[in-house]
């Protein structure tokens, strides 16, 4: 159907891209650029923005709460990332075996992924209730006197991490499953002939051949976990005593509660820069550990 002339082809392509592009432009593209501009202003949303140069960025440097929020965000990532990777890989390996009810379990583990964060957070808030929650009830079977979870600054972040792992495992598991199914059986057969133990097969075949998938998951999860927000907002609102305040929550507070849209924009751009640099570094490092099958 495409005409003989090149421009007609382009017209068709543009016509199909246009709706999406316009949506992106107005709801994402322009706001992103605007936030960059706003990050150099002081703007309370009620009166006109006032240009103040890099003052906001300077203020971030001296803002103890920014560093505290960054520290909490990093703590979340350090606790969350390895856990979700290990748990999801374990489940993916199990569900990759030929077993009864495999489809059912694959679907079951995916349900949290499509549930809303608000619902999940509220349910887990109840599960973590120190006196009536199922978590501490379960622990009491083993004679463990469970902590106060969300009211205890030492445990609140761990509770949030556990909730996040529960919700995201299904997604990561599906990616791992796809990766596992891409590994050719021939490697395992060859290893069998050489008399390799299951553990050795896992260590020397599965892990290396999964590295492209792992790399992808790492990038995606890291970007997402730098932006952790919903569960924190609902489960703890950053408390107790600020022990779970994360960066995006700080952005939200400045933008919509403290009348400081300019400062909030600046923090957003700092967050972007952090994510950007981390992703760049990951990309560089991938050559060292990611094996792409020849």
């Amino acid at each position, binding site marked *: 159907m495409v005409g003989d002339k090149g421009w007609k082809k382009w017209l068709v392509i543009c016509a199909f891209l246009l709706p999406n592009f316009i949506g992106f432009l107005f709801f994402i593209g322009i706001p992103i650029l605007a936030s960059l501009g706003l990050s150099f202003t002081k703007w309370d949303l*009620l*009166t006109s923005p006032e240009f103040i140069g890099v003052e906001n960025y300077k203020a971030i440097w001296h803002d103890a709460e920014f560093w505290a929020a960054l520290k909490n965000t990093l703590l979340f990532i350090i606790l969350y990332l390895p856990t979700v990777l290990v748990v999801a890989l374990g489940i993916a390996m199990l569900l990759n075996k030929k077993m009864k009810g495999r489809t059912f379990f694959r679907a079951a583990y995916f349900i949290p992924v499509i549930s809303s964060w608000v619902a999940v957070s509220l349910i887990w808030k109840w599960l973590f209730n120190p006196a009536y929650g199922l978590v501490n009830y379960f622990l009491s079977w083993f004679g463990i006197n469970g902590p106060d979870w969300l009211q205890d600054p030492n445990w609140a972040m761990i509770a949030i991490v556990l909730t996040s792992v529960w919700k995201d495992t299904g997604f990561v598991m599906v990616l791992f499953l796809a990766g596992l199914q891409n590994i050719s059986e021939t490697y395992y057969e060859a290893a069998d002939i050489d008399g390799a133990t299951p553990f050795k097969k896992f260590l020397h075949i599965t892990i290396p051949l999964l590295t492209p998938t792992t790399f992808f998951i790492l990038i995606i999860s890291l970007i997402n976990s730098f932006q952790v927000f919903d569960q924190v907002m609902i489960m703890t609102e950053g408390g107790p005593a600020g022990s779970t305040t994360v960066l995006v929550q700080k952005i939200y507070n400045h933008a919509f509660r403290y009348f400081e849209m300019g400062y909030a924009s600046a923090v957003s751009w700092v967050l972007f820069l952090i994510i950007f640099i981390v992703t760049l570094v990951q990309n560089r490092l991938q050559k060292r550990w990611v094996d792409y099958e020849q």
Partner: protein
Amino acid sequence: MKKTGIFAIILLLLIGIVAGCSGESSTGKSKDGVVTLKYFAFSPGEAHEKDLKAMIAAFEKQNPKIKVDYELASFEDYFTKLQTQIAGSNAPDVFELNYENFVSYAAKGALLELDPLIKKDKEFNPDSINKKAYEAFQYDGKQYGMVESFSNVVLFYNKDLFDQAGVEYPSESWTWKEELEAAEKLTNNKGVWGTYAPVQFWEFYKTIAQNGGSIFNEDKTEVTVNSPENVETLTWMMDKMNKYHVTPTEKEMSGQANEDLFKAGKIAMLRTGIWMFDGFKDVPFKWDIALEPGNTQKAHHFFANGLAVSKKTKNAESAWKWAQFMSSSEEAAKIRIDSSWELPAVTDEALVKGYLEKSPPESREVVFKALDSLVVPPVIEEWSKLTDMFGKELDKVKLGQETPENALKNVEKELQTLIKK
């Protein structure tokens, strides 16, 4: 055919964009001279939307040339939406503000000064509104808002528990000392706690006032939070939990709301808002309210909602009429009282009488007596920062990470930077 189809699609999309950007003209005036006001509110919620509709109907009947178009949002979303609308030059003509946020909006110049409109309006008499409540919506001596309703916090008590323990009901002359004595008798090993007040910022600024303390000096140029009286107050608030064990700690409450514990007959004395009257209506025990015991003096919370007019409205006079109607008209006040939707701040005795005659609680006059010793929230421009910071420090005290002395020292330092900005 195909070609024209593609062109048509592109054309349609472009038209869509242009139309979407230009927006409609926003004077809100139609050809027949009827003005449409945009009104944005949070206080009706779902429960009172029908009452708001009734008010609008009454208003439109009085003012056939004005139509009110309302939009509602929950309190959590309201201010985000309002700010976005104002930032997008799409502000509602009239909107609700609670007292705390009123100060921020007035200070930032987003509100229309109402004094010229008040002077012009021959029918409006400020004396029809409770003076203190009316003046709460002034900033820099100018009227920027109209109070529509108020609420306060008093001492609720479970009469049955008092009878069982053989303790006299709380009286006006009670101080913290009598409260503690009663609470110690009321607390028992069957899970009943004598008294409850949360340890958080709002409770704190009122409780220090009961001990003669304050957070700022009168004109909010100096921080007075770190005083011996206030340290004593905070220590008292903590002691009720940790020393006298007449108030449950957060752990002991394990996620249950204090109102629910009161309803379950587990708390004998509870400081909470008069908005709970409806919620406590059907409990299986007798209860009443009293003035809060103070230490050296009485002090009671005062919360108010009001209507403000956007500085950018094109229909100032109609907007004023609506704000005035919601604030001081008999019609609006009557609907409010009949539906138990907060308390109008009107002085009309017939209306107030209707409120007093309702029960429970029997001693509704306490609600008005409490107004004689009201403390308004110590609002500054950086209000949300103040409440967040304060909440964090009080959290630390509750967790035992900080002593009351040190927490107030930290707060003092932070507040000094906040009021200097």
